[in-house]
């Protein structure tokens, strides 16, 4: 079974190499990409099943080095679950982009670069999830970041270069911070292995622990777009091509959140910055969603809600009880899927209506009922209406917070509910204006929404284009996955609860060796 683990990273890299060589053969590239990601999905599902049923994480030491020295790949329930979810998302977005590319003749997505970069991005994401030591996590981050630099400036048009530069420079800074933190942790503890770090960390003086902790938090918070380090996100995401934005929104920030989860639960079990995290979580939720309310363009609205909902995950981490960690992980899975789906649906809106401005687009409900449904379900889900998974995740989170019951928890619960309602408001306003409103009502509503007139990109119009069936199919598939998260919430939440319980249990290096079979 452990032989399968390295394949999660090597297969996409191999696929990327083949796709790069086959640069001129579109069909080969598409076939290679889809096959690779499907195989990874199958492997990840097998691993998740094994790890969850067996209850034992799988550790693999690469190259046969003894365990604290070599590179260790470590698959526990959390890593396996996230690899499964992200490979589903990557596959769906790939299908979406294949449909888009085929219809456009690849005017704005030069195809020879897209597939290799996409697969390298996938390899980086998987590597980050299964990394057993901090340095490998850094390498995973770098792989996915470099691929994302290419993807965000895809086509290298002027606007994409401009927004891409912001994203790239911010990411560079966070990477250097991360590297410096690793160096300092190595200097203090003499190891980069996560299990060994968590054991030795308790021997350090409190202030050293706090310094290392804050350095890592800073580096990861930039990547996860936690307020006040989130301003790069709404700047850079909306300009990229729709499938790229979808996959970035779903996965890249979540890799940051994943790193935060590992930091908070495993590495620094003793050092306590939960109050700080609470304040940051509240600010992220509120500031993010207020940004969304002020926007008139669907992609920008979604980018701001993305920032705002990162706040829920930080909130869950800050509660730091097993139930809260479990709820955070469920919420994270829900958010990966739903946010990606919404961006895909908006991609469809953009093609159908030629614009994503909610002031310009009207009458989509009548003109394109399928897109309307594909937008409505995830929008309501993200807003947290029962019975959808967004409601389940938020309810579990608030329940865990209420069990702790301190005053700050109550403040955060109220903040969370307000954020949820405002998210619903922003998304439903878009629904009312773009889908529900008829063309002839425009004059009447114009005065009521005049305050949005000055919002960025409110009037941009591009050409309308046909929607290939495969794009609709990919989006529909994702909507079905979001509904499945609700229908199968029981088993999924069970897995998340077990993750929450396991993450807060300290682990010893001998256990790790045992799992690696040494």
């Amino acid at each position: 079974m452990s032989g399968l683990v390295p394949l999660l990273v090597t297969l996409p890299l191999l696929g990327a190499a083949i796709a790069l060589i086959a640069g001129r053969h579109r069909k080969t590239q598409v076939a290679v990409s889809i096959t690779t990601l499907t195989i990874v999905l199958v492997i990840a599902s097998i691993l998740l099943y094994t790890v969850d049923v067996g209850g034992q994480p799988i550790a693999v030491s690469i190259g046969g080095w003894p365990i604290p020295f070599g590179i260790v790949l470590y698959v526990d329930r959390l890593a396996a679950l996230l690899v499964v979810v992200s490979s589903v998302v990557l596959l769906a977005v790939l299908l979406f982009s294949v449909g888009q590319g085929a219809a456009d003749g690849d005017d704005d997505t030069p195809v020879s670069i897209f597939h290799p970069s996409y697969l390298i991005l996938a390899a980086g994401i998987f590597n980050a999830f299964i990394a057993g030591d901090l340095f490998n996590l850094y390498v995973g981050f770098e792989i996915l970041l470099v691929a994302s630099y290419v993807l965000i400036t895809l086509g290298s048009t002027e606007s994409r270069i401009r927004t891409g530069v912001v994203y790239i420079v911010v990411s560079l800074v966070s990477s250097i911070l991360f590297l410096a933190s690793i160096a300092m942790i190595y200097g203090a503890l003499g190891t980069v292995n996560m299990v060994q770090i968590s054991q030795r960390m308790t021997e350090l003086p409190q202030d050293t622990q706090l310094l290392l902790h804050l350095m890592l938090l800073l580096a990861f918070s930039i990547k996860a777009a936690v307020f006040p380090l989130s301003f790069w996100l709404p700047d850079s995401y909306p300009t990229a091509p729709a499938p790229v934005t979808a996959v970035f929104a779903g996965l890249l920030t979540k890799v940051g959140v994943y790193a935060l989860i590992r930091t908070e639960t495993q590495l620094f079990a003793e050092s306590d910055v939960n109050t700080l995290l609470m304040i940051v979580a509240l600010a992220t939720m509120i500031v993010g969603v207020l940004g969304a309310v002020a926007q008139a363009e669907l992609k920008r609205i979604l980018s701001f809600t993305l920032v705002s909902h990162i706040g829920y995950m930080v909130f869950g981490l800050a509660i730091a009880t097993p139930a809260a960690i479990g709820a955070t992980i469920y919420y994270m899975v829900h958010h990966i899927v739903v946010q990606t789906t919404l961006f895909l649906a908006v991609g469809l809106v953009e093609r159908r209506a030629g614009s994503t401005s909610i002031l310009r687009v009207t009458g989509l409900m009548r003109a394109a009922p399928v897109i309307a449904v594909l937008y409505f379900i995830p929008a309501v889900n993200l807003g947290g209406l029962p019975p959808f998974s967004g409601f389940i995740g938020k309810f579990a989170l608030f329940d865990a917070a209420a069990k702790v019951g301190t005053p700050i928890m109550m403040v955060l619960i109220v903040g969370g509910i307000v954020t949820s309602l405002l998210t619903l408001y922003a998304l439903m306003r878009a629904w009312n204006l773009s889908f529900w409103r008829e063309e002839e009502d425009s004059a009447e509503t114009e005065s009521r929404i005049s305050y949005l007139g000055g919002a960025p990109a409110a009037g941009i119009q591009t050409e309308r284009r046909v929607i290939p069936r495969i794009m609709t199919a990919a989006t529909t598939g994702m909507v079905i996955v979001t509904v499945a998260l609700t229908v199968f919430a029981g088993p999924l939440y069970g897995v998340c609860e077990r993750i929450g319980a396991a993450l807060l249990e300290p682990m010893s290096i001998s256990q790790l060796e045992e799992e690696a079979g040494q």
Partner: protein
Amino acid sequence: MSVSLALIVIMAVLFACGVYAMLERSLTRVLIGFLLLGNAANLLLLVVMGEPGLAPFYGAEGEVSDPLPQALTLTAIVITFAVSAFLLALIYRSWQLGQADTVTDDETDIAVRERSLGAEETMDDEAELGGDDATTDFIGVDTSPITVLGSRDVPGLVDDAPTDRPAPRRPGSDRGGDRS
């Protein structure tokens, strides 16, 4: 563990200069800043290695130094190298498009600023966008360092890059600086 004071001082200076250079608008300086920061982080890894001057060979006689930070440094150098190559390409492309390698303000930020300008008469000096072009390293130089070649200028070179290149120009007439 004894470490070299000189290394620590150099590392600190590199970090400071790197951050300072990265705050510039010119992308070329951001690149220089990034290189400085990358080297500073590598030096930090060397500092934590412990006593300098020992060989990292396993089984050698006497004391050996810790080989792991060297492995980490090597990896970090490779990553820095790849990212710098990408940044160079980005700078080139940015210059090719707009004859400038500066980070321009976000359109939406400008829109927001203009909206609040009505309410607020005086704005801070950041509103003067025109003056910032002057920090570009390439503009106004007589011997422009780069001649822009589109694929159409070179016979036999076919690339499938996007088609929104600037129109090809004669190498002799390219002075680059006439925009600012």
